[in-house]
């Protein structure tokens, strides 16, 4: 699509400005595309990933939201070498200039952030390989069997931790435990590893979501102030503060750091921090009030702006993706698998427990137990029960 030529001069200018500020990054390939492809990549996470019904639901939702113009994807950029980024054809020129500046912030983050050093920059090819492997196994073992297996694997895949290096701590996380100990057949283990690798790729992005979006928005604002005329700049700066929470929280944190300690300090933070460190250090009471973030108790309909509670909850959300903190209980006999919910005060949705345990049981094959809600739930070959 030839229209990319229209953006070549501004891409050069933005990249030059960024480098002059001390940013550094790998080459970025921009691609002009339609909303449909954007929704597709956004819902699957990677352009050539294996096809699963679960992304279908997300894709459907995104396309309807885009059609209704309730929400549109702001930008899409892949942590690969080289990096790929998408510009929507139906955006105005100015909108795409914003996207380009924002993307430059992301690729700088990918190239310099400490936690991205060990990240897999080859994921585009690996995802393609995984997709081929899955097609191959589907032909050999039947689509239904593979689909059921993938459902179970994606369910436990949310327990990955891309940061965790200690084998002991990793073993407490369900997916690593299953990889090591579950009586899986070879093809099942291959698929578990494929799903786990992809989940780790996304886990890193999730664990740095606030700092990464915050940094990109901060860079975008900084570069655009130089490029745009004052009137354009004012309309943009209003827009910047009405973005989804990770953008605005991260942006506020970086602005506070720059205002207090200068641009170099901000650069340093983008190099060494991830979300939890950033929140611990920079999230202030004043900021919480301004962003109107609180811990909400639906039973009492009460809000709490207590800085410690908000901070703790935000951090916990980062560590477990907003999902309950469930660990594998190590030791015990080798046949049964026992999982423990670590935060007894918060109750788990009971309807989901049997479905979850059924999925785990399909991988573990032997009795699976979960201690939560003051009960012990069991799934074994007779089915689901609780005491």
């Amino acid at each position, binding site marked *: 699509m030839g229209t990319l030529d229209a953006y070549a001069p501004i891409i050069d200018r933005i990249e030059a400005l960024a480098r002059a500020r001390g940013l550094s990054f790998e080459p970025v390939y921009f691609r002009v595309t*339609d909303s449909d492809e954007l929704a*597709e990549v956004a819902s699957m996470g990677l352009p050539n990933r294996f*096809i699963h019904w679960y992304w279908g639901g997300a894709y459907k939702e995104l396309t309807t939201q885009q059609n209704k113009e309730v929400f549109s994807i702001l930008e899409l950029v892949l942590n690969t070498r080289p990096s790929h980024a998408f510009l929507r054809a*139906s955006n105005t020129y100015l909108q795409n200039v914003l996207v380009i500046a924002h993307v430059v912030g992301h690729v700088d983050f990918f190239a310099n952030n400490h936690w991205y050093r060990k990240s897999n920059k080859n994921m585009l090819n690996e995802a393609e390989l995984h997709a081929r492997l899955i097609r191959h196994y589907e032909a050999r073992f039947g689509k239904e069997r593979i689909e059921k297996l993938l459902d179970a694997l994606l369910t436990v895949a*949310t327990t990955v931790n891309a940061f965790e290096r200690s084998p002991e701590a990793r073993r407490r996380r369900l997916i690593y435990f299953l990889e090591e100990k579950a009586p899986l057949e070879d093809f099942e283990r291959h698929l578990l590893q494929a799903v786990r690798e992809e989940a780790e790729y*996304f886990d890193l992005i999730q664990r740095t979501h*606030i700092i990464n979006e915050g940094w990109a928005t901060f860079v975008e604002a900084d570069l655009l102030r130089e490029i745009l005329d004052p009137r354009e700049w004012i309309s943009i700066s209003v827009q910047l503060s009405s*973005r989804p929470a990770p953008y605005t929280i991260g942006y506020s944190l970086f602005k506070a750091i720059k205002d207090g300690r200068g641009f170099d300090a901000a650069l340093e933070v983008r190099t060494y921090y991830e979300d939890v460190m950033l929140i611990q250090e920079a999230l202030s009471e004043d900021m919480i009030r301004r962003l109107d973030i609180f811990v909400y108790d639906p039973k009492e309909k009460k*809000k709490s702006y207590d800085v410690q509670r908000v901070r703790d909850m935000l951090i916990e959300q980062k560590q477990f993706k907003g999902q309950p903190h469930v660990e594998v209980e190590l030791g015990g006999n080798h046949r049964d698998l026992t999982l423990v919910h670590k935060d007894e005060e918060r109750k788990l949705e009971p309807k989901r427990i049997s479905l979850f345990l059924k*999925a785990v049981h399909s991988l573990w094959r032997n009795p699976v137990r979960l201690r939560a809600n003051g009960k012990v739930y069991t799934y074994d070959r007779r089915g689901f029960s609780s005491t």
Partner: protein
Amino acid sequence: MSLRIHRGRIAQHKHDQLLREYLKQNLNELIQQKELIIDGRVKTQITTLDLPTLRYGEEATVLAQGQGGAGQGQGRGAGRDGGDEEVQALGGLLGGDHHGRELRVELDFDEFVRLAQEVLIDEIQLPPLHTVGRAGEVETDEMPELDDLDRIGLRPDLNLEETMLHSLLRSVRERGVLDYDVDVRQDGWYFVEDPVQYRNHRSLEVYVLDISGSMRGEYLALVRKTIFVLWYYLERRYPTNLRRYIVFQDAAAEKTRDDFFCVESSGGTHISSGFEKAVELLEGATEYDKFLFLFSDGETSSGDFDVAKRRYEDALSRFDLICYGHVNPGSRGIGGFSEYVQETARKYPNATFANLVDVGTIRAAMVDFLTFLTQERSDGHAGRLRTDH
């Protein structure tokens, strides 16, 4: 043309297949909702398909953002339905993935009807009608002339010139490129017959519903199921179906389709008013076949009985076919006005009576109805009433 593999659409197709299975299993419950159509859509209690990951219960505390903060109106997917509008849970948003959504599945009414038809045709075990009725079914001496264009049609009748032009314009509009990327669903234009000339392909269907009695779930379910199955056959028989809806208790009123599927029961019963209103709607109708489908429990007010008889006979002389459905979910006897219609319908070739008790009796009613359609097809017209055309 671009040869892109639409992975998103393939994934969505897989997702929707699963969803359909799920909805099919819950159809009976869904069809009984008092307000079936809200803003043109059917709401369900089913949350969107999700992987069975663990989740906190409704009452657990959450991290949330209020109106005072930024980012409102975006990424609402993470919201939880607490009835407290100004609080938006941040879970999914900060986690960065899609888990924990609480979206209720909604369907277009048309999509819902198609789904219901699939289930019902299967359940009733009537043959699905494969022959499409655009031109084939009404006997006519002339070959239909395809001299008009429409956005809906059959693949063999695709008008290439219009379709390509439309695709080109869409590409320019959406992507700013001069490119043919034909998506028949979006760009297709078809040759069709001029609807005015071929009026014999059109039907007028009047649906009349008695809302006086207790419209319990099963009552509604029987009426709606019967209507959806009727639609299945009528849509394949007539390319153009004009549908009008009437509800009555003491008096009758015409309703929109959406209101017809959301009525509240009330008042006494004057079946006569239903027939009277239906005949009124025939004023100026030019459709080839005119159908009246009336659903009632038959318990008309005593003073209305004789008037209702006269109106029924009057309607019989005006409609090509009147199907009277005695809605009888408890399988009690057939009394009141229904008993009268049951007797009378035998004497008229264009009257049918159905005792709607369960899916089996819907099947019996459909057999009667299809017999009528088949006869009409072989005669080329619907019996004695054709003389006035």
